[in-house]
């Protein structure tokens, strides 16, 4: 019997020829990521294992993203302690304020994730790493501490589900729309829990790395273990010059076993919106056109990339954001920030009346800048919309693509970018 790409990765990193779903294996990990608010606890736990040096200083990646720049004294103190512990362990790659970005963006963009390998991180959206054909997985600080000490993590080999995506992407339709479409189709609360989700088909081959990252990013919200796109020429081009290490092009065997195969024709996927509170309550944009909102947010590990800012700039060129809308745009990393600046996107967005915030998770988890207050209705390109996610429990969050956010911000009500002029 053939193996899926995830099975192959788990086999080769656990030193076996073959693995089967359900088996527990200890795999060699390529990189382990931790970040500002949990990182210190990882190091403390790691020390308690009786080690003082991490398994490889080049492969423990430390990032400041949830707390930078600190909005209050508590966060400032946490950051100081975090910096001290990273310095103490002589970590090679520390993306601190000034070089910061959302950890998952940094991991992929800086080449710390490689096809055919396993990378883990102490944050839910580590699933993003599947975009380059790696197994990317979220873990708690215990697993991270163990990996820092040993270079290994245990895994249960997951059953596989395939999404074969065919057809052609229509104008203004983004990977986020497909992601929300699948969310509505499969439900957030999990027929997909523990599974590996494999995205294949012509519409995936046609997707750039930014879109693949969006798609894999939100597989955690489907309850899946990981999402993965097999490496191809897009991957090779993206990684050339940034990859930190060697990699292997793996793909699933023809006769690999899938628990289920779903077909989606992307030609029929339009702009999609998740209604407040429940991620799988998704509707085509037509259903909510005209809905009022007062805050617009584009950023996060889901949609804070250059391609997202590009499409916004295209829509907002020579337009003005409605006077009743506050828009905050947060590039996912310093690299994205600089690239968007050089490309002129930020200039366009600022001229239109958007506020650009420095790279961080910002209001995504409701603990940093730009949080929602009572009565706010937020149109967000982020990944989560449960009550209280972005701050107040008395706020509502609609989730959608950057294109929908941009077009809607001009009119002041939810708008279909396809009919927007």
């Amino acid at each position: 019997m053939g193996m899926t790409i995830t099975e192959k990765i788990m086999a080769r990193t656990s030193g076996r020829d073959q693995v089967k779903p359900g088996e527990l294996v200890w795999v060699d990990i390529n990189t382990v990521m931790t970040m500002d608010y949990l990182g210190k606890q990882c190091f403390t736990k790691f020390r308690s294992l009786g080690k003082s040096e991490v398994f490889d200083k080049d492969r423990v990646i430390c990032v400041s993203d949830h707390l930078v720049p600190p909005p209050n004294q508590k966060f400032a103190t946490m950051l100081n302690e975090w910096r001290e512990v990273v310095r103490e362990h002589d970590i090679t790659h520390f993306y601190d304020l000034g070089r910061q970005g959302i950890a998952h963006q940094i991991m992929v963009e800086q080449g710390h994730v490689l096809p055919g390998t396993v990378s883990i991180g102490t944050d839910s959206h580590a699933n993003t790493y599947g975009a380059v054909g790696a197994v990317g997985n979220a873990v708690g600080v215990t697993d991270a501490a163990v990996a820092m000490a040993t270079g290994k993590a245990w895994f249960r080999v997951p059953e596989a589900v395939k999404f074969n995506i065919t057809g052609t992407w229509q104008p203004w339709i983004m990977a986020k729309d497909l992601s929300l479409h699948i969310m509505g189709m499969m439900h957030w609360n999990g027929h997909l829990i523990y599974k590996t989700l494999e995205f294949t088909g012509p519409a995936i081959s046609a997707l750039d790395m930014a879109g693949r990252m969006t798609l894999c990013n939100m597989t955690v919200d489907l309850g899946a273990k990981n999402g993965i796109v097999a490496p191809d020429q897009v991957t090779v081009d993206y990684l050339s010059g940034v990859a930190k290490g060697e990699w292997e092009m793996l793909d699933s065997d023809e006769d690999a076993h899938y628990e289920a195969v779903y077909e989606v024709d992307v030609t029929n996927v339009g702009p999609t919106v998740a209604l407040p509170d429940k991620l799988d309550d998704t509707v085509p944009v037509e259903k909510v056109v005209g809905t009022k909102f007062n805050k617009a947010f584009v950023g996060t590990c889901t949609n804070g990339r250059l391609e997202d800012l590009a499409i916004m700039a295209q829509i907002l060129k020579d337009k003005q954001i409605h006077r009743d809308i506050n828009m905050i745009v947060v590039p996912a990393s310093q690299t994205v920030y600089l690239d968007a600046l050089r490309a002129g996107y930020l200039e366009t967005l600022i001229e239109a009346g958007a506020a650009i915030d420095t790279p961080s998770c910002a209001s995504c988890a409701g603990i940093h800048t730009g949080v929602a207050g009572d009565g706010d209705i937020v149109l967000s390109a982020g990944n989560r919309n449960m009550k209280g996610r972005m701050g107040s429990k008395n706020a509502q969050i609609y989730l959608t693509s950057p294109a929908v956010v941009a077009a809607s911000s001009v009119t002041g009500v939810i708008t279909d970018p396809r009919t927007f002029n």
Partner: protein
Amino acid sequence: MIRGKCWVADDYVMAYNIIIQEYWISPINPEENSKWVMAGVKEEFNKENGFKDGGYTFIVAAHNFAGGGKSIEHVITGLMGAGIKAVFADSFARLQFRNAINYGLPFVTSKDIAKGCNTGDELEYDPSTGNITNLTTNKSFNSVPAAPFVAEVESAGGLMNFVRDKIAKGQPIG
């Protein structure tokens, strides 16, 4: 054999409701985390030691216990600090299932237990057979026995102890 009172969830129990946002960035510590555990699940638990004071030993839940995609371990340490010795559910969210294994807190999959228990019922759980008995109603339930690795980690007192021991002895972990 573990014996004690159960609390039965009447809906999906999400990780971000077990530990609410305000406590996500607090240190991982069973005593501290247990004070506000379950604060977002029910209004009656939204006070200091609100859940803990119930004196429950078990939680009985339905589908996707501790779901919603949060990886924080406070969820597990909070429950443990509140005296929970095992959670029985139809299914568990993977992030917290993993954390539970790492902490040696049994997350036990049992298909129909949710329909057979009420909050306050006295249960008895035998980890060696996976048998759960509701002593109040005299009903029994089966559960999926833990995999050998899980049992090994559990008997070591969690993954940290398991790995620490291997490192101290210079043994490979896998």
